[in-house]
């Protein structure tokens, strides 16, 4: 599991020898290995577990989503791409389902998965620091007149690695609260600080908010009294406030940095329209003499416009979308203040790919997971902390999905940790029912 997190991060990294030709292939090998291990683990549990109620409904929703993704090959502009991505999502769901089945009777499986995700994310954060020391010009995006410098770490952009770091923050909180040994609690605290610090340095507001939303969910569900819940919640909110303040400290540059020699060579022919009105910047392009507004804490001009455009585009094929896995192919960035090949909203991205039908299935699955999580945290004490940790990750992921496209992309750095924890909730709930 930790290897999967690392290989997914490598596939999304800005380090050329990690990304292409290594990381992008390795992640599928590791996913296949995880599936094999998960199936063996599930088979070795021996005793059949009864899958009824919410876990059964969740399994059905997940199966329906995967099936729709596969069938969308029939109307996709790139059938091969759609099929490959649908198969990878199916494999991820299968691995997560098998692990959840194994965890139903043995909570140690759940503990191992959570510790592995936390370990993998911590290694990603540490690797980012090593990359900063060795290649600072790649690990940091230089400040411009519009925004302050932003920390990439291993990521191809400042928002990439914070996805997996944010998802792991509730797990650091879980380990800090429940690890038996002081050394383990110390490591968890250090990992949490490292991950939150990396997110703050990246300037990724969505990831920061999501990380603390996950921590808040953990805090509210593990507290045994209202007083303790209030104290924990206050600590989380204070942590978020401090982090936001620190995030605002770096200032934009006085002027844009000079073009590098290679970028200067790529400037367009002066007779071309691309110099004056780039197609990728058409919407929201400032008029002559106007300056683009600087990036602020609550500003979202570029993203809001891009989302509106993507929703309009989804509305042209509303029921079943353009085909699973085609988000980057279908979405065209025409927005001046937006810099991404994807919509950067998992819900709109899902609507674009598999239409309203697919979006409803996805939302139903997420709702079932959340409901299952709330039930599981009221279960016997032995599994409550585990369920709370998983619920924290899911809440974090649900919030993060508003500002990042990752939920339905098995190859993205955040999908595996999210779905593994989501399915574990079902496994823990089924296990509690069996014991009852």
């Amino acid at each position, binding site marked *: 599991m930790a290897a999967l997190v690392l290989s997914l991060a490598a596939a999304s990294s800005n380090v050329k020898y990690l990304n292409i030709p290594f990381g992008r292939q390795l992640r599928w090998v590791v996913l296949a290995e995880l599936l094999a291990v998960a199936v063996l683990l599930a088979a070795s549990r021996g005793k059949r577990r009864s899958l009824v109620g919410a876990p059964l409904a969740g399994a059905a929703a997940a199966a329906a989503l995967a099936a729709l993704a596969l*069938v969308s090959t029939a*109307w996709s*502009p790139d059938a091969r791409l759609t099929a490959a991505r649908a198969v990878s999502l199916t494999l991820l769901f299968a691995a997560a389902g098998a692990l959840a089945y194994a965890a139903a009777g043995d909570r140690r499986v759940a503990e191992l998965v959570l510790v592995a995700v936390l370990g993998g994310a911590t290694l990603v954060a540490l690797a980012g620091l090593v990359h900063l020391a060795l290649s600072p010009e790649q690990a940091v995006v230089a400040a411009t007149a519009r925004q302050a410098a932003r920390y990439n770490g291993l990521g191809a952009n400042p928002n990439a690695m914070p996805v997996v770091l944010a998802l792991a923050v509730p797990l650091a909180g879980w380990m800090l609260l429940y690890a038996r040994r002081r050394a383990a609690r110390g490591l968890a605290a250090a990992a949490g600080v490292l991950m939150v610090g990396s997110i703050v340095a990246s300037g990724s507001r969505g990831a920061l908010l999501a990380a603390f939303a996950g921590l808040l969910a953990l805090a509210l569900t593990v507290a045994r009294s209202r007083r303790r819940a209030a104290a924990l919640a206050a600590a989380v909110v204070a942590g978020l406030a401090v982090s936001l303040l620190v995030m605002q400290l770096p200032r934009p540059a006085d002027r844009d940095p000079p073009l590098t020699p290679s970028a200067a060579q790529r400037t367009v*022919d002066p007779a071309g329209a691309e110099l004056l009105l780039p197609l990728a910047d058409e919407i929201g392009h400032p008029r002559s003499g106007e300056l683009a507004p600087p990036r602020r804490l609550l500003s979202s001009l570029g993203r809001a416009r891009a989302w509106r455009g993507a929703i309009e585009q989804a509305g042209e094929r509303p029921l079943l979308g353009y085909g699973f896995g085609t988000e980057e192919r279908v979405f065209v960035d025409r927005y001046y203040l937006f810099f991404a090949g994807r919509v950067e909203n998992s819900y709109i991205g899902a609507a674009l790919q598999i239409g309203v039908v697919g979006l409803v299935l996805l939302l139903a699955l997420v709702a079932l997971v959340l409901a299952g999580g709330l039930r599981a945290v009221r279960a016997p004490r032995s599994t409550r902390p585990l369920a709370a940790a998983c619920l924290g990750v899911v809440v974090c992921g649900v919030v993060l999905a508003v500002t990042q496209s990752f939920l339905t992309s098995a190859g993205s750095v955040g999908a595996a940790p999210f779905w593994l924890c989501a399915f574990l909730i079902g496994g823990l709930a089924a296990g509690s029912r069996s014991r009852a």
Partner: protein
Amino acid sequence: MRGARLAVAALVAIAVLVALIPLGRWERSRRADEQVRGMQSVLAAVGRLDSPSLAAFRQLGSFDCLLYRRARNPFALEVCVNDRGRVVEAIDRRGKAARIWSLRDDPSRSSVLVDRARVERLLRKMGAPR
């Protein structure tokens, strides 16, 4: 009994999924037809590709664009063509907001064809690099 119920549920699910295929393809065709109509309207507004109002060009790797002046706007109308002569995008900027018709996601669905060789000549005439 439970096994039978599961089998029935699975069959129903498969039937539903198979029924979605013509629906998904119909949505694809309907959108393509809409975009093609829009592109044709822009081409009609442009008139001849070598019109004297040809004002600028754009080269973007997967397609090249010709831009036409209307009144004081040198980029009022834009037609983008891929290497097979298919129009993959057309833009009308004569109004307050640009109206864009695009089949960049699925160029093979565009039935609007132009003479690619003529586009090449026009690009060279405007000084576009090869």
